[in-house]
């Protein structure tokens, strides 16, 4: 298996607050990797550091053999890493379709790709199709989450990083989304997944990392993690 992304001793700060503390992790091509951890552990910060929104103070991030440290976010997107951030962050004043078009900004010259991508999103989430011309801000929370994921897919990611994609979604949609993640992965996209719904995440993932106070304290295959006492107590329930 080829290593796609590798973080070594990464330290990230918000002002004086240290959010990542010598964090190291690795993602191989074709995997689904789950990132578990309690609130404020630094999961989102890890994704933000990878996607360039937060600049690490020290440490190395290697993507396909190239360093990502100091590369601006839009370049990182162009290189195939797409981050679907927590809290959805859809463009409320723009229509669903426009949101999707912007998701394909790096493919803006390829009209066909954009058109087909939008079709694919609508197939994935028919609810979005009904509202194609509606300002995205008027969508319900769940609908917004669907839009955020499809918008991420519009950029044809090699690595898709999803930050709590199931937050606020109805159970039936969560099942749907988990299925879709699996599907996307099958089609060749590597996935880094943050989920509070650890049960679902570990069912989906090949491997998992447990992060606490900005540091990886445990990592193993999903099957092993599922049996771990600590994980069961904090994340899975008896």
């Amino acid at each position: 298996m080829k290593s796609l992304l590798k973080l070594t001793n990464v330290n990230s700060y918000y002002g004086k607050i240290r959010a990542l503390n010598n964090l190291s992790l690795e993602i191989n091509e074709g995997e689904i990797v789950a990132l578990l951890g309690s609130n404020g552990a630094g999961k989102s910060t890890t994704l933000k550091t990878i996607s360039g929104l937060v600049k690490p103070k020290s440490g190395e991030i290697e993507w396909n053999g190239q360093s990502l440290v100091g590369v601006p976010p839009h370049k990182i997107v162009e290189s195939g890493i797409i981050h679907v951030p927590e809290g959805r962050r859809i463009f409320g004043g723009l229509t669903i379709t426009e949101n999707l078009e912007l998701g394909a900004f790096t493919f803006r010259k390829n009209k066909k790709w954009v058109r087909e991508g939008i079709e694919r999103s609508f197939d994935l989430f028919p609810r979005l199709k009904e509202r194609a011309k509606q300002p995205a801000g008027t969508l319900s929370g769940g609908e917004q989450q669907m839009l955020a994921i499809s918008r991420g897919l519009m950029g044809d990611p090699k690595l898709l990083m999803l930050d709590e994609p199931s937050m606020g979604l109805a159970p039936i949609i969560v099942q749907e989304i988990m299925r879709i993640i699996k599907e996307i992965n099958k089609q060749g996209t590597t996935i880094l997944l943050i989920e509070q719904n650890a049960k679902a995440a570990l069912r989906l993932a090949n491997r998992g990392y447990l992060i606490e106070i900005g540091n990886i304290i445990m990592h193993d295959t999903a099957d092993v993690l599922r049996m771990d006492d600590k994980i069961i107590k904090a994340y899975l329930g008896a």
Partner: protein
Amino acid sequence: MSILTVKNLKLQFGGLLAVNDLSFTVEKNTISSIIGPNGAGKTSVFNMITGFYRPTSGEIELDGTSLINNKPSQITKLGMARTFQNLRLFPNLSALDNVKSGMHCRTKEAVWGALFHTKSQKEEERLIEEVAQECIDFVGVRKYMKRSAKNLPYGAQRYLEIARALATKPKILLLDEPAAGLNFEEKQYLIQLIRRIRDEFNITVLMIEHDMGLIKEISENITVIDYGCKIAEGTPDEVLKNEKVIEAYLGKEDVI
């Protein structure tokens, strides 16, 4: 005895009928829930009850008083408090100051008192401080008390919003997806918290939630809505077995 009654509630956004002829009641001192697919109109119902949206038609009563045409601030004063699905804390203020806001509608000192530091003003300030600290302790975020709300971990922000709502001394508390983003352990804590709110303060709780584990565990009564209409109602055991509910909302798999 019912504390909140919603009758034939309707809400229209242009062509979209977000809530359609919805009626339900909430009994005093219960923990009840509203569930339903995304976009079913749950939050909209909350927004109407708390005065943020004006219903197209229908009736809402709190303890026998009609809430229609009241401003949100008046409704809060009547004894209703809420949290928001997308957190709406005062981002730059300390956690403590956030919670103090809840006491605003329970106090009355104005310009005069502030300017001359009258005795009653000092007394009231002390009370505000005391209640705010109590609420912060109650939800367990004391260690973040002095930090800006925006810098708190997500879970702490959720609890803080609850503390702020409690500081308004409500009769009924509306929670919009309180467990979203919490891990299993934290959800257990939230469950305890909601129970204590009801048991220690005698506050009725009505919540919207997608976490069926949590719903099953504490909800005594559930209303299910889909496309703005009520499709089922009853105890968790009844509702979660309902075919319509499974089809529209739960799905066949167990993802909890």
